[in-house]
């Protein structure tokens, strides 16, 4: 029995190469990139985001995922020669980055005109060996990402690029292609002297191929100082939350 198994393994190695079938303990360990946010590094189990894999940060609007993504992007601009934000929704504002002290000379923003071009850009840049790739995907683009996600995953694996996708809701294809998924959920707003200064968010590792999933942490995400610009949705959410708080206090 053992001989037959060994022979079968030999045949597989001969036909498809040594990489086609390998013992787990012989596989190379996944390298990580420390994000600079200790809580996030702790959640991954490998002290950082995995290199050569797709990581996903998902959550509803106003949960703080974009701010967290920007914090990681700022860290990447300091750590890598080139960090690229792919922004098909054209919503990226570098001003929000300034709070995190980025190295702007290392930052390039790519604004592809459509879903297909987004995939083309992400794949080409991952293949070229960019250090960090932030994919800010609106829902319609994320939903149409299935054809190019496997190509992107393979390209990132070859070049060891760190790919972080920020989405509101992770479609199945993206959930499948990712090695690491964080779910971000807002647990409250942060006020100071009556002013909104940020959100409290719970970040949970819902999928982890490189470590143990399920861990979660609480984050306090502050908006940049002088943030006189808030999307209407934030304002509406804050208003609703204030109302709920008042009602619960009355009860």
């Amino acid at each position, binding site marked *: 029995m053992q001989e037959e198994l060994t022979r079968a393994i030999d045949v597989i190695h001969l036909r498809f190469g040594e990489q086609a079938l390998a013992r787990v303990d012989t596989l190379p360990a996944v390298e990580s990139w420390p994000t600079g946010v200790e809580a996030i590094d702790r959640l991954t189990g490998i002290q950082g985001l995995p290199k050569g894999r797709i990581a996903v940060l998902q959550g509803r609007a106003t949960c703080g995922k974009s701010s967290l993504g920007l914090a990681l992007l700022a860290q990447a601009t300091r750590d890598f*020669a080139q960090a690229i934000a792919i922004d098909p929704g054209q919503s990226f504002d570098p001003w929000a980055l300034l709070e995190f002290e980025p190295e702007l000379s290392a930052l390039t*923003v*790519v604004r592809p005109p459509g879903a297909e071009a987004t995939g083309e850009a992400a794949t080409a840049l991952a*293949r*070229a060996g*960019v250090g960090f790739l932030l994919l800010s995907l609106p829902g319609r683009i994320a939903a149409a990402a299935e054809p190019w996600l496997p190509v992107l995953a393979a390209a990132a694996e070859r070049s060891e690029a760190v790919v972080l996708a920020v989405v509101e809701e992770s479609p199945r294809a993206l959930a499948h292609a990712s090695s690491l998924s964080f779910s971000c959920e807002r647990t409250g707003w942060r006020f100071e002297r009556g002013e909104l200064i940020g959100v409290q968010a719970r970040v949970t590792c819902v999928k982890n191929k490189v470590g143990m999933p399920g861990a979660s942490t609480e984050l306090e995400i502050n908006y940049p100082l*002088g943030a006189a*610009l808030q999307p*209407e949705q934030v304002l509406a959410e804050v208003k609703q939350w204030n109302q709920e708080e008042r009602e619960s206090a009355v009860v």
Partner: protein
Amino acid sequence: MEPGRARVCCGLTVHYELAQRPDLYGRPVVVAAWREHVVCASPEAENFGVRVGMRQRQAQQLCPDAVFLDPDPDAAGRLRELVCAALYDLSPVVEARVDGCAWIDLDGVVQATEAVREMRRRLRQATGAEPRLGLAPGPFSARLAAARARPGRLLRVADAAPFLAPLPIAELDLESWQLEQLDLLGLRTLADVARIGPRQLESQLGKPGRLTVERARGQEPDRLTPWTPPVTTSAHRQFDPPVEEREALLFVARALCNDLAQELALRGAGAKQLRVRLDTEERESLVRHPLSSTAELFGLVGAWLREWQPAAPVEAMRVELPLLEAAGRRQLRLWARGDGSADEVTAALERLQERHGAEVALQPEPALPASPVPSQRFHWHALGASDAPISTRRSRPVPVIDENPRLSRDLGFFPHRAP
């Protein structure tokens, strides 16, 4: 010529016509067209008396067991180009002939020994045969030294004259009638030729007579004709029957890009211009960053093909690189954190700009970060463009909160702290 200084290395392999069939090494092989003259013959065939220039039928009579091949001068020429390209980065002065002689000038080369060793390895890789190497003050004596070296070995000649003296006059590159005339004059060795004056032999043989004397004296009158890398290259494929499937075209395009990338890598070159022809239709593009890898070339070609709608089934595809220059790559992984791939990333961004316009890849530069108007806070520069900022287009107007008193009053968090 500075005497006593070996500076030219000659690598002697088989004729490049014979090198097309390395599987026949060790067997008598004759390259000659039907009823034409013999172009070249393997040493095994020459043992039977086959000589270059004799009639093919005569060669067949002398060596009936030999394998007779039709000449393929194009393939031999390509191999010659390949050999020159392979040797070009060892020395800037390189010459190769299809008869299997290749020279490099080591004058000024810092690591000459290493260059000779590398020359041997590359010639063996290109022809499949172990070269014989000769190092001498000039091309003539270097070739004769190489002819006397064992395969894979180097014969070094410091002083050409004493080395050449005992050699027979058959080693001189002369016509048969000229050799006969020398024989009639009683000149049997190069030492004999060296003893007479150049003008005397010139009067007998014309200008070659003077050169012959100078060669025999070890004065090395010949100069290498430096090979210059072509400034253009291309690869093409003919389809029979014509192809209309896009996947098939992409497959062939990738293979062509792979061939071109291998050639570029060998020459250390990159393509500044790329042109694709499908029958009579063509597309071309100038790139700022030289393309050199398969991924870079196919990134552009593949993107074109995916959106191309040929009017009819395609009979031929040609990928041309009309403008080449030094690839100018930095050593990969020289610095940590992916700096080594910065050039590739820039090239990928440029390709995206080629396809979707310059505004697809932007770099922000702080302008008035404290401004309440978002569009004033940053200037956006297209990657690789001049200093002129471009206006950015936003998908939706962003509300500025100080223009909306209702919201600021209701929620009470305005005015904010100044940035």
